[in-house]
């Protein structure tokens, strides 16, 4: 579903990712762990087309993010192409990023009506379903500022789901939450993981969650995957010293 092939990403002279290759199968749940600054967010941002690769290719569902087929030859992707691939991908941010000028309803129906062409009624019905799913069925007319961080993040998850994405990217979605609100959001994500066939790629510092949510965990450091294994293996018998040290540091926190 997701494929990175020899991806390089630089910010000026600073090479953040180099020769990065990995693949995620449809429906697979993959967690990215690793120290801060190792390039995890950058991977998600590249997938979300918020950044462009400097070399290599990324494909989602077989479609390249950076190139398109034009009469048999590969040419750089135009806006339209990027928008089409983008529709299959949803992202939830650390800081929620709900639109404060809209109600919860507005946030949830904006893209389905503007991008997918749903009618207001259809989009509202979908929004209601999703709000029920995330446990906020009665907050349709609230403003984001009236919600707690945990509630805002649930709405943000619902907003991403409203686009019926094939792939959902989660970037430390509980890092900005008060500790008592974290569990609720993680439970919601576990439920989603179990009840949908969405492909998940999530960056997290919640090792407990990474352990029971993912099919595979990738340990990242210095822009490279240094260990890629099933959670049972990676958390109990990590092969690399760097992984061991990292796990030690986060678990002891």
């Amino acid at each position, binding site marked *: 579903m997701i494929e990175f092939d020899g991806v390089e990403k630089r910010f000026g002279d600073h090479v953040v990712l180099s020769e990065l290759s990995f693949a995620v199968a449809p429906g697979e749940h993959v967690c990215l762990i690793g120290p801060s600054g190792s390039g995890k967010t950058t991977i998600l941002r590249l997938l979300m087309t*918020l950044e462009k690769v400097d070399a290599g290719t990324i494909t989602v569902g077989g479609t390249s993010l950076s190139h398109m087929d034009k009469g048999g030859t590969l040419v750089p992707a135009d806006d339209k192409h990027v928008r089409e691939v*983008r529709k299959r991908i949803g992202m939830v941010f650390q800081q929620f990023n709900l639109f404060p000028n809209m109600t919860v309803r507005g946030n949830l129906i904006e893209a389905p009506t503007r991008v997918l062409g749903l009618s207001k009624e259809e989009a509202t019905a979908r929004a209601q379903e999703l709000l029920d799913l995330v446990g906020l069925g009665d907050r349709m007319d609230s403003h984001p500022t009236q919600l707690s961080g945990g509630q805002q993040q649930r709405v943000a998850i619902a907003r991403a789901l409203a686009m019926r994405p094939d792939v959902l990217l989660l970037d430390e979605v509980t890092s900005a939450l008060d500790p008592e609100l974290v569990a609720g959001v993680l439970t919601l994500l576990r439920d989603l993981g179990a009840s949908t066939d969405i492909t998940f790629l999530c960056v997290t510092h919640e090792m407990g969650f990474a352990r029971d949510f993912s099919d595979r965990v990738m340990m990242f450091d210095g822009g490279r995957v240094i260990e890629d294994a099933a959670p049972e293996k990676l958390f109990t018998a990590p092969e690399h010293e760097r992984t061991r040290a990292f796990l030690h540091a986060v678990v002891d926190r």
Partner: protein
Amino acid sequence: MNVWDWNFAGQIIPALLNGLRITLVATVLGSLIAFVLGLVLAILGRGPRPVRIVVRAVVEFVRSTPLLVQVYFLFFVLPTFGVVLPALTVGVLALGLHYATYTSEVYRAGIDAVPRGQWEAATALSLPRSRVWTGVVLPQAVPRVLPALGNYVISMFKETPLLIGIGVLDIVGQVREVGGQSFRYVEAYTIAGLLFLLLSYPASLAVRRLERRRAVR
């Protein structure tokens, strides 16, 4: 001859009010142009590099030349290109254009204050660019800058007398007319000053209230 003649003051009030009407028309229309054109400039200022450079240059040029020069320039140069417009229209265009370069900076600050995460969330939802502007960015940016825009309306209001240079009979133009006929200036200038005060003081109070309301939120 008394310094102040109540009778005369009463006589000239209709002419002065007529002038005030012109002043207000110029201010309102000039503001509308400044609001719309300033917004366009601010949005183009975030466009591709060549566009950005051109917009920057136009804004800098207009800001670094006096409004009066721009008023005269439009009034005397446009006709050489066959564009003959009434003085008031030229005045409104000059005011609008001049102030648009200031309002564009105001909008720019408001747009810059919208967190990057808002753009990114909108992009992640595949919203088209135009909708990101109209649905997400501007509704957050514009309310924040309303007080600053209001202040420019007040400045413009006080600068409209510049238009007498091209023959617009605004309030100060009327003062000069009645003064020229009667050789009495005290009443006319005093009333004109009072009329300005009567409008701009409450207006600036209103802007200040708006500022406070926004600061509380």
